[in-house]
């Protein structure tokens, strides 16, 4: 089976000319700016891929993504679904002989992919949960009952017990239009 997102909205997007732009030297700069790491120092030794728990069980190759960053291969990097197979374990970062943080290069590329509306749905759902409850993994009734049995309060001392803190969090998220974009991208995938 060919690699793909199994998401019709995303496939349609890839047909668009916008997603076939030429290689872009600005991409290297953007990745370095967001990741705060020196991607261009990479000499392609492969220590990162050799350290990577995702490499032996997929076609994900962190060394390849670092190369794409340095070469400005924006479309190749941002449309490859392997971008989302990094567990952010930072083993590559601790072992890179050039002092690069390949993990942070991946994180920067994911941020840039989001700007292209390329992002798996689970990430967007986390955004929605945090926006509405303050928690990525919110409380539930089974857990409330268990908490009470333990002598804890049903709601923890977080935004759950003090929902008056949630509007502040929403202001932060809205400042970057994160929720708005997440909602829009999720809605596009729904019809």
């Amino acid at each position, binding site marked *: 089976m060919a690699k793909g997102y199994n998401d019709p909205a995303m496939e349609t997007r890839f047909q668009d000319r916008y997603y076939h732009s030429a290689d872009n030297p600005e991409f290297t700069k953007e990745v370095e700016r967001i990741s705060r790491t020196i991607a261009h120092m990479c000499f392609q030794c492969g220590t990162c891929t050799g350290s990577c728990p995702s490499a032996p069980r997929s076609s994900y190759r962190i060394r390849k993504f670092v190369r794409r960053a340095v070469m400005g291969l924006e479309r190749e990097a941002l449309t490859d679904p392997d971008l989302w197979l990094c567990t*952010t374990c930072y083993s590559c970062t601790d072992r890179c002989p050039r002092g690069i943080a390949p993990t942070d290069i991946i994180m920067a590329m994911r941020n840039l992919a989001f700007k292209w509306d390329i992002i798996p749905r689970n*990430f967007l759902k986390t955004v929605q949960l945090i926006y509405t409850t303050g928690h990525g*993994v919110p409380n539930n009734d089974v857990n409330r009952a268990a908490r009470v049995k333990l002598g804890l309060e049903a709601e*923890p001392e977080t935004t759950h017990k*003090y929902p*008056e803190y949630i509007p502040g969090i929403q202001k*932060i998220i809205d*400042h970057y239009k994160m929720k708005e974009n997440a909602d829009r991208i999720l809605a596009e995938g729904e019809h």
Partner: protein
Amino acid sequence: MHEYAFFLGCIAPNRYPGCEAAAIKTSRKLGIELLPLKGASCCPAPGAFGAVDLNVWYAMAARNIVLAEQMNKDITLICNGCYKSIYEVNERLKENDDLRDGVNEVLAEIDMEFKGSIDVYHLAELYYDPKICGVDKIRDSVTRPLTGTKIAVHYGCHLLKPIKERRFTDSENPMWIEELVDALGAESVQYRNKMQCCGAGGGVRGFDLAHSLDITNEKLINVTEVGADAITEVCPFCQLQYDRGQIEIKEKFGIEWALPVLHYNELLGLAQGMTPQELALDLHGIDCKPFLDKIR
């Protein structure tokens, strides 16, 4: 008494409340008082949320830190994911004016300001620190030693890596959590590829569950190979991945495991005489009884 603002995160209070209850009770016996950090949110998740927009990750983590600054207390926490967000954002904002200014511009909208006046610690780190607690004090607090059990330690990734941005010195073969485990009367065991990830992080658990579980499965093979009776960790997300993950591995791959998974604070609670009920061990996906039965 050493006092800290206790940052809860999501998975401990909302999935494994026994970890939260144990952290508070066990620490009190060690002279560490955990104070509620009112109105804290998700750290937010460094991978699953940071992947979308790191600007928001910095600002939301900073909001949590400012809540503790307002209490004038250092933060402690019991989750590696939280540690990455809260510890790392705190350090980065202290060191980088450009980042701090950007974050403070946003925080000003909600009348907050990041000052950089507190520090962030993982609770396990405080337990190991002789100035705060230390291994001897842990050993002295044990009333029901976990004698007869073999325990494999999973450090988790974000506690120690990236090592350049941590207080710790070794992310390849650390042994300090083993010391904390041995202090409970248990025997810590070494296994192949100890520092490998549990597989949950970076949003991979949500994006490609089979891929993520395959990493977990490899760890389970390595841990059971050396005869461990349980895995311990210091991260409720790793705990979820190993614990619920064993059930998912059975569903997806047809491989059966039954290896109990306990947070270090749950182990410490047991060793200090807390009952399985007081630790809500019944909320675990994998039955902890085989482990409890091993204790002599």
